[in-house]
Structures are given as C-alpha cells and as structure tokens.
C-alpha cells in the first residue's frame, strides 16, 4: 500500500493569497481611478477660473487701449503697454523688422490691481465649488510676446520713421526738430539781415512803417469861416495877446488895481477874438508838423486844427474843399503822420505781440503744450531719440494667468497662457506741419509718374471754357480761415484756445541754379476781398474819416496806411530814374506790360494814389492776373520756418504808376531828375536812420517799407533735392504698409460704403449722431467715392485708387483729425464739393472741377499741376492735421500716444496651459 501525503491547506492558502492579491489590486485601481477623476475635476475648475479671468482681462484691455483720457492706473498701464517704442532686434530685406520685446515693460498684478478686474466676479464660482475664496489666489502678467513693424516690400522709407526729416529753416521753427526736452524751446529770429522777420521778443511779424520825424509843410488856401476859440494868422496875435494877459494875471504879487486892469484887457482880447470869429476874414492856414512829434492829423481831416494848444474849426466859406482828397493827392504821407502812433499801434495790435492776434503767432504757447504732454508721456516711455525705435507695430499680446488653490496644505494650480494679435497704428496725417507740400519725387510714387522731379510751373494757368469761368485762383492760407457768404475770410479767434501754428510750405524740384528756381507769386488780395489777407487790409487805401466814400468803406485800411515807394530802376540800380514811372514796392498786384507780355493789363493807372486806389477796385485787377498765390494772415509768404522750402523764388507783385512831376530840373536839356510833388523826408527803421530826401533818388542803401526782403530758399542748397527721403513728407507710408496696418481692410469701396451705413454696434461705422466713426486706418483696395459725410475720431482713409469727393466732407468736432489719402492715384474734388475738412494727400496731381473749393486742413501732393486747381483755398489748420501739439514735432512726436490706434483681433490666436516644472 502506497501512501501519498500532501498539504491541502497549503494549496488553499496559496490560492487565497493569489485571490487576495488580485482582489486588492482590483480595488486599488478603482480607487486610483476615482481619485484621478476627482483630481481632473479640480484641474478643470482651475482651468475654468483661469480662462474666465483671462477673458475679463481681455475685455478690460479692449476697453482701455484707446482711452486717451484714462483715469485709473490699470487703464493707464494697459494703454501705455502697447504703445511702447521698441528698438529693432533684427532685420531682413523686404520683411518686417523684428522688434526687441525682451526689454519691453510688462504689466503684472504685482504692480497694478489686475486681479481686481475679475476677482469679484469669480468669487461666487469659487464658493459654488465648495472652496473658500481666500484659498484661491491669482497672478496675472501681460506682456508683448513678439512684435514687428510694418515694413514695405522694397527700399521705401518713411520720413519720420525710417528716415529723419530735413531740419526746418529758421530759428522760429527749430522746435519742430527738437531731439529732446532741452531743445524744445520757442526761439525767434532777431537778426534783421538774415531773417528779418521776427523781432527778438515774442514771435511776430515786424513791419516797417515810415516815421515822419522832420518838418513838413503843406499849405491850404481859401476863405474860411472860423468858429471855436480862435484862428490862425491874425488870430494868432489875438490869442498870443490873450495868453500873455493870462500869464500876467497868474502873478500872485499883483495889486488889486493891476489885476483889474489886466482883467479888462483880457475881456477886450476875448471880445476881439469873438468878433473875429464872425468876421468872415480869410485865413491862410499853415499846418506844421514839428520835429518833436507828429501833429494831430485828425484835426485836419475833420476840418479842425489845433494851433498852440487851441482848437479851431474851419468851415470853408466857398465851394467845399475835400481836405481828405486834397491831402491824399498831394501829401499821402501826411495821412500817415496823423497821429502816427495810432496806425503803428493798430498795426502792432494786430500783427505784433501785444494783441490777441499776436498770441496766435506765439510759438511759446504751442511749445509749452508740447512740453507738458512730453512730461506726462515720460512717466511711461523712454523718449530717447538716439536709437531707432518703432511705436507702430503688429504685436502678439500675451496674458499669463496662474490660479492656485491651496486647501489644508494641499496646493494645486494651473497657468494659462493666451496670446492675441494687436495692431498699433499711427493715424497722424501726412506732413501735418505743412500747409502745402509738393513732393515731386518718384521716391513716393510707387511707380513712375512722368515729369516728376522737374521744375513745376506754379503759375501755369489757362482759361477754362470761357474767361468768365476762369477764376484761376489757388490760395494757400498759412492760418485757418472760414468761408462766409462764399468768401474766404481769415478767422483766427476761436481756433487758438489750444495753440496753433502757421503752416509751412514746400515744393520740391531738382534744380541747381537760381535761374532754374520756381517762381511763386505772393498774394496781396484784392480790393473786393481785402480781408483775405490782413496785410492787404492794412494797406488798402480806404477808411478815412468824414463822409467820403472811402470813409464809409469799412472793409479796408483799418490802419490808414499807404504804400510807400522808393525810387528804383528796373535793374535795381539806385540812380535817378528819367522815367516818370515809379514802382510801388509794397505788396500790390503785379502787372507790368513790359515785364510780363502775357499780362492782359496794359494800362498803367493814372497818376495819384487816388487813381491807384481806383485801380485796385477795377475789374481788371483781380486774381486772374496772378493765379498762383500764397497768402496768410499777416504772415503770408512767411510761414513758420521763415522759408518757403524748396528751390523757389518769391516775387513781390508790383505796379507801375505814373507820377505827376511838379518841376523839372534839366541840365543840358537832359532830364536827369524828376521832382515829385511829395516833398517829405522819412526815416526807415531798417536803414541806417539817415533821413533821406525823396525828392531825389536816395543814395546808398535804400529804405524798404512793409514786408522785409524775403530770403529765397534757393540760396540754401540744402533744399535742392527731391531724391532723398529726408525731403519727403513725414508719415507717408507705402500702399503695402497701409494695407498691413489697416484696422479695417476693405477689398472694395462698396464694402466700405456699406459699413458707413451700418451702426457701430452692429459692426459698422455709423455713430448714433449720424457721423461716421474714423478710428485707425481704413484701407480700401481700389477707388472710393465720398461726399456728404461728417467724420468723427482720429483716423486715415486710404484708397489705393482715386478718391472722388462728390459732396462736402466735414469733421464732427475739434478733436477729430481726418486724413484722406489717394495713395497711388489722385483726389478728384467733384463739382458738388465746396468744402473738405481733411488733411489731403494725392499721389498724382489733385483735380478740382472749377467750383469754389475750401480745404480746411492741408494739401500734400506728389505731383502738382496748377491748371488742375481753380478757385481753391487751402486753409491750414494745424489742430485738424495733428492729434496734438506734441505729435507735430518731428523727432519727439512719435512718442505721443494719442497718435496710435490699437485694434485687437476678435479671438485668441493661441492658448495653452504651461506644464508645471519639476
């Protein structure tokens, strides 16, 4: 018998052990899975909180980034974060420059209360999880992850961004080119010889007026009735006697008897004077102006004279004598000497520093505003202009939010990183400091326009259809003006609460000698529209006293000045002129048959200034005579910078008049001098103060009156170029760049027009008040028709093709700046367009249909054809061309944050959760 023994217990134990292990493993894995599920749920909650927090930050950013008038730290930080100027990190030809964001400033919750934006909204959610709000902490950081500028495709450069601008001429405009705060100073050109336009104190236009400081006599003859206290001539004796008696009576040591006797003599003298008044005797009145001061000329105009302190009224007994005409005919300067201080004061009041007008010309106010703004900006930005930096950019804005839940020592956190694309776009119009800028260069044309670069005929004008329609005027006002009753009028008063500047003028051309210089006529206005220029109003011969027609003409000659003249020959030699013709040098309209054979004016006005005044009124004397004109209110031909930039010679208009010689002196039968009836002397402030007798030709340095000699820019070879980007208008980007930086891109004009009809809250451009929102750059990939819109905001409308304006374009308010840019074509001002309130850029020559057109802003063109612009006034408005005084500055202006409109994409470009580091 075999016995096999074994251990069933052992077997069972082994089985139990295996089964138990399996059971444990099974249970454990389920527990792990359950724990994992709970963990993932916590992570999901943290993610939800992080995403919600980031959404709140994005909403706050979008609400803040274009808030120029921010009031809290968070808004200020976000506003300035995106407007940082970044240096270039790397470049590749034809590609956007990569900007250095590593050293860029960031905004974090450690510095400003970013968490406060969303915490209160998220706390209820935290509570719903069964957590305590105090157990959840947030950290947020917003930064620029990457940034690029908007580069052109080729070697194109933007003046002001990629290339510096050529510095302005003259000290008065120096502050425009300030590189730092220390250079931001309003200066004046006090040197009369080099730029004799601004007096040392303040910034104003100096005006030479003749100052009579020598005796002059003019005699009136006639029969006069005398009323008043006395009369001249015979009366002189009586009044002398009376005075003598009165002096004796004043002696306190007289006895009673002596006093009574003198009193009796005085009474007799007075009786004799009274008797004389009604005697009807003839007086010969001599008006004398003493060397020590001018006489009261108003006494003459009103028929009163004052002799020895006693006023007499003269009434002509016989046929009336028009004293005004008499004097004007024979003694024009007598008119000026009438209380000479008064017209000088008036002139000073309206042109010089001590007046409300002069305030407008003071650069001090403008510079002060720019400095104040720069001080504010410095708190957030490094305004060093030494390295090339870009504010305008496309950037990826990064939000990094970390949410941490800490409960009973157990910590879990999630970090969300989200990035959204932004565009920071410069909305400053092109060349905002210029009234008129003609670039005339293929550097800008993006193609080749024929004829660009050559000298432009600024006076080229041909009649259209019929002469009546050929108005032909193109006038640039360097200061703002308004249109009233169809007439353009300088209107400065309401515009200078915030300081404005006069405009500058530039016309480029490639010339190398003075002979090749372009010629620009200077404008004096007309008698019909003397208010077109203040200077014309000053010199228009009208505004006398009494009941003369001129006295009732209130339009002109507030200052009762007359143009003066000097002896000059045609070739400018100061020798006695045998001709009876005489040139009036001061601004009057040019017409000289001998010099300008094409001029339709052949007749020279008759002698006498009254005739000349009539000539001003005549229909022959109109703007057709010199259609290319520049004007400005008291600084015409003298825009800021004291130069019309470019190879341009300015000519004064002048007129030849006949004078009536009162005598000849001849030697050997040859007339070698002509005596003019005006027998006076005067002294010029500009000259060496030597009195001159203008009965003969002045010797030596001649005296000039009125406007100083204008230094033509042609002398300065610096301006003789249009082949360098530094002579191009500031802020003129290429078509591709405008397309890249557009905050709204329209592939056709119809889309843009459609948006103009749609409300803003529906994604369109129409505000609730009917105005069209213009913020940022709107790019239309083609032509565009506009007209009848009112725009509000700060922006540019850029069309690749032609901009046709069929109705008026207006700005909704003073803060609006609007630029219309026909980047590759031209602006056509249609027949229904009479007013355009915008800074206009036209690559090809702009065209107006012949109606009276008023551009309130500025006009910048690449090509220019004078014949395309008829009856056009460009009225420079610096506030409408620039978002702020600081923005106008050429080097520092780019730091003005208001220049930039920031647009964000609708959706995130990228979101991810950061992995936790071990």
């Amino acid at each position, binding site marked *: *018998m075999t016995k096999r023994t074994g251990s*069933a*217990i052992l077997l*069972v134990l082994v*089985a*139990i052990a295996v*089964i*138990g292990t*399996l*059971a*444990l493993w*099974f*249970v454990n*894995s*389920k*527990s792990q*899975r*359950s724990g994992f*599920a709970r963990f*993932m*749920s916590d992570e*999901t*909650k943290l993610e*939800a*909180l992080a*995403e*919600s927090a980031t*959404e*709140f930050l*994005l*909403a*706050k950013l*979008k*609400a803040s980034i274009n808030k120029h008038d921010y009031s809290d730290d968070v808004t200020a930080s976000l506003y300035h974060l995106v407007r940082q100027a970044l240096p270039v990190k790397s470049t590749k030809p034809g590609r956007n420059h990569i900007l250095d964001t590593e050293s860029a400033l960031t905004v974090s919750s450690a510095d400003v209360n970013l968490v406060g*934006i*969303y915490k209160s*909204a*998220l706390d*209820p*959610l*935290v509570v*719903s*999880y069964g957590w305590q709000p105090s157990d959840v902490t947030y950290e947020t950081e917003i930064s620029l992850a990457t940034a690029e500028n908007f580069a052109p495709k080729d070697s194109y450069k933007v003046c002001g961004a990629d290339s510096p601008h050529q510095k302005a001429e003259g000290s008065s405009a120096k502050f425009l080119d300030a590189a730092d705060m220390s250079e931001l100073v309003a200066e004046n050109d006090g040197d009369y010889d080099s730029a004799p336009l601004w007096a040392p104190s303040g910034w104003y236009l100096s005006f030479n007026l003749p100052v009579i400081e020598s005796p002059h006599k003019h005699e009136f003859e006639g029969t006069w009735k005398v009323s008043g206290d006395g009369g001249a001539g015979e009366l002189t004796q009586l009044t002398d006697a009376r005075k003598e008696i009165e002096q004796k009576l004043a002696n306190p040591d007289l006895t009673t008897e002596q006093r009574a006797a003198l009193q009796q003599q005085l009474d007799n003298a007075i009786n004799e004077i009274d008797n004389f008044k009604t005697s009807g005797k003839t007086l010969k009145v001599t008006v004398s102006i003493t060397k020590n001061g001018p006489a009261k000329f108003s006494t003459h105009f009103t028929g009163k004279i004052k002799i020895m302190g006693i006023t007499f009224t003269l009434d002509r007994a016989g046929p009336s004598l028009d004293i005004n005409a008499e004097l004007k005919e024979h003694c024009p300067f007598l008119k000026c000497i009438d209380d000479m201080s008064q017209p000088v004061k008036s002139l000073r009041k309206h042109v010089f520093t001590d007046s409300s007008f002069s305030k407008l010309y003071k650069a001090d106010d403008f510079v002060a505003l720019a400095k104040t703004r720069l001080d504010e900006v410095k708190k957030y930005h490094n305004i060093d202009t030494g390295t090339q930096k870009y504010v305008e950019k496309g950037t990826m804005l990064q939000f990094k939010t970390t949410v941490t839940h800490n409960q009973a020592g157990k910590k879990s956190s999630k970090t969300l990183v989200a990035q959204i694309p932004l565009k920071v776009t410069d909305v400053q119009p092109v060349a905002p400091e210029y009234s008129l800028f003609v670039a005339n260069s293929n550097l800008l044309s993006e193609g080749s326009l024929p004829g660009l670069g050559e000298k432009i005929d600024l006076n080229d004008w041909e009649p259209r259809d019929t002469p009546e329609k050929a108005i032909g005027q193109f006038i640039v006002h360097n200061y703002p003006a308004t249109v009233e009753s169809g007439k353009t009028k300088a209107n400065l008063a309401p515009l200078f609460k915030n300081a404005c500047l006069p405009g500058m003028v530039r016309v480029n051309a490639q010339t190398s000698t003075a002979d090749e210089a372009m010629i620009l006529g200077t404008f004096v206005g007309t008698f019909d529209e003397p208010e077109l220029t203040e200077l014309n109003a000053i010199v228009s011969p009208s505004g006398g006293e009494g009941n003369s027609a001129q006295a009732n003409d209130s339009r002109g000659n507030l200052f009762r000045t007359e143009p003066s003249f000097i002896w000059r020959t045609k070739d400018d030699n100061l020798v006695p002129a045998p001709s009876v013709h005489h040139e009036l040098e001061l601004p009057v309209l040019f017409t000289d048959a001998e010099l300008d054979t094409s001029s339709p004016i052949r007749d020279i006005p008759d002698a006498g200034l009254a005739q000349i005044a009539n000539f001003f009124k005549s229909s022959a004397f109109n703007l057709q005579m010199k259609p290319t004109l520049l004007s400005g209110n008291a600084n015409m031909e003298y825009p800021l910078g004291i130069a019309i930039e470019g190879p341009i010679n300015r000519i004064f208009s002048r007129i030849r008049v006949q004078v009536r010689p009162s005598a000849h002196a001849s030697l050997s039968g040859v007339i070698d001098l002509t005596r003019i009836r005006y027998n006076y002397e005067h002294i010029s402030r500009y000259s060496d103060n030597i009195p001159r007798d203008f009965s003969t030709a002045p010797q030596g340095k001649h005296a000039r009156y009125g406007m100083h000699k204008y230094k033509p820019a042609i002398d300065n070879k610096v301006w003789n170029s249009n082949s360098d980007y530094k002579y191009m208008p500031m802020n003129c980007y290429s078509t591709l760049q405008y397309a890249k930086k557009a905050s709204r891109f329209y592939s056709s004009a119809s889309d843009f027009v459609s948006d103009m009809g749609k409300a803003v809250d529906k994604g369109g451009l129409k505000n609730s008040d009917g105005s069209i929102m213009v913020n940022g750059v709107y790019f239309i990939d083609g032509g565009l028709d506009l007209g009848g819109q009112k725009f509000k905001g700060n922006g540019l409308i850029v069309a690749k093709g032609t901009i046709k304006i069929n109705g008026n374009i207006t700005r909704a308010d003073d803060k609006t700046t609007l630029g219309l840019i026909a980047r590759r074509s031209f602006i056509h001002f249609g027949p229904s367009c009479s007013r355009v309130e915008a800074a206009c850029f036209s690559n090809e020559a702009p065209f107006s249909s012949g109606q009276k057109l008023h551009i309130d802003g500025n006009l910048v063109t690449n090509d220019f054809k004078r014949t395309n612009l008829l009856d056009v006034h460009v009225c420079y408005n610096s506030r409408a061309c620039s978002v702020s005084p600081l923005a106008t500055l050429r080097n520092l202006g780019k730091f003005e944050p208001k220049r930039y409109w920031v*647009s*964000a994409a*609708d959706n995130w470009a990228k979101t991810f959760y950061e992995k936790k580091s071990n």
Partner: protein
Amino acid sequence: MKKNRISVKRGLSLIEIAAAVLVFSAAVIPLYHAMSYGAKEDIHIDKIAVADKILSSFRDEIKNMDFKTVAGLYGTARVYKGTEDMTPNTFKEFLKEKEKYKDFEFEAETTKQDSPIESISFKAKVTWTSATNKGERKLAFVKVNTLTP
C-alpha cells in the same frame, strides 16, 4: 503462494470537502465583494467622466459662441433645467448618455453682470443617482463680452 495486489485509493472525506468549501468561501466571498465594489466604482467613475464630459462640452460650446448669442440664450438670470436651451452638441451628448445610463440630470444657473465689464456667469451641474447617494459634478465659468467697445 502469490497474493493479488489490490489498489487502494483513498477518497475525500466529508470533513475535508466541508473544510475546502469553507476555505474557498472565505476566499471567494471577499473577492466577490471586491469585484462588486469595483464594478460599482467603475460605474461611478464612468458617470463622473460622463458628467465632466457634458459639463466640458457645455463650457466649450459657450466659449466658442459670440457673446451676443450667449446673451440671447442665457442673458436672463435664472436656472435652466434639463435640456431646456441646452447648447446643441451638449444636447446630443447628454441625450446619448441619458439613454445609456437612464440617469443624469443637468442644470445651469446664470447670472448677468452689466458693469464694469459685461459678462454672464454660469454654474452648471450634472447629477445622477448612485447606489449609496446622489452623484454630482459642478463646473462654473464666466462668458465675458470681449468685443471691442
């Protein structure tokens, strides 16, 4: 003389069988309980996962909608129960799971805030029955109006 060999096979006694059954039972019963617990736990976790899936789907759909549409659907502060106004994909998912498990309820409470930043808060909840108690998962998030003002 030769003897015939007889094989003697020993059998299992009743006591041995009883002991074996006893031991086996002692081992198997806990194992059964463990497996049973695991299966319940599996279902529970599955339901958690389904609930999370529904909640995530709801959140993702809201996240991808524009604010105007969300405000139109959920702008009024109230509690949305069941499939009332549920987002479409979530609705499909929810019905599928409900059919499978014959369980789940969904609820979303919304609150609208107009200032300083316009937003709608969501407190979403999915509940289900379980052997021991009611299961519940929550997810809260905010939909913010991020359109440029």
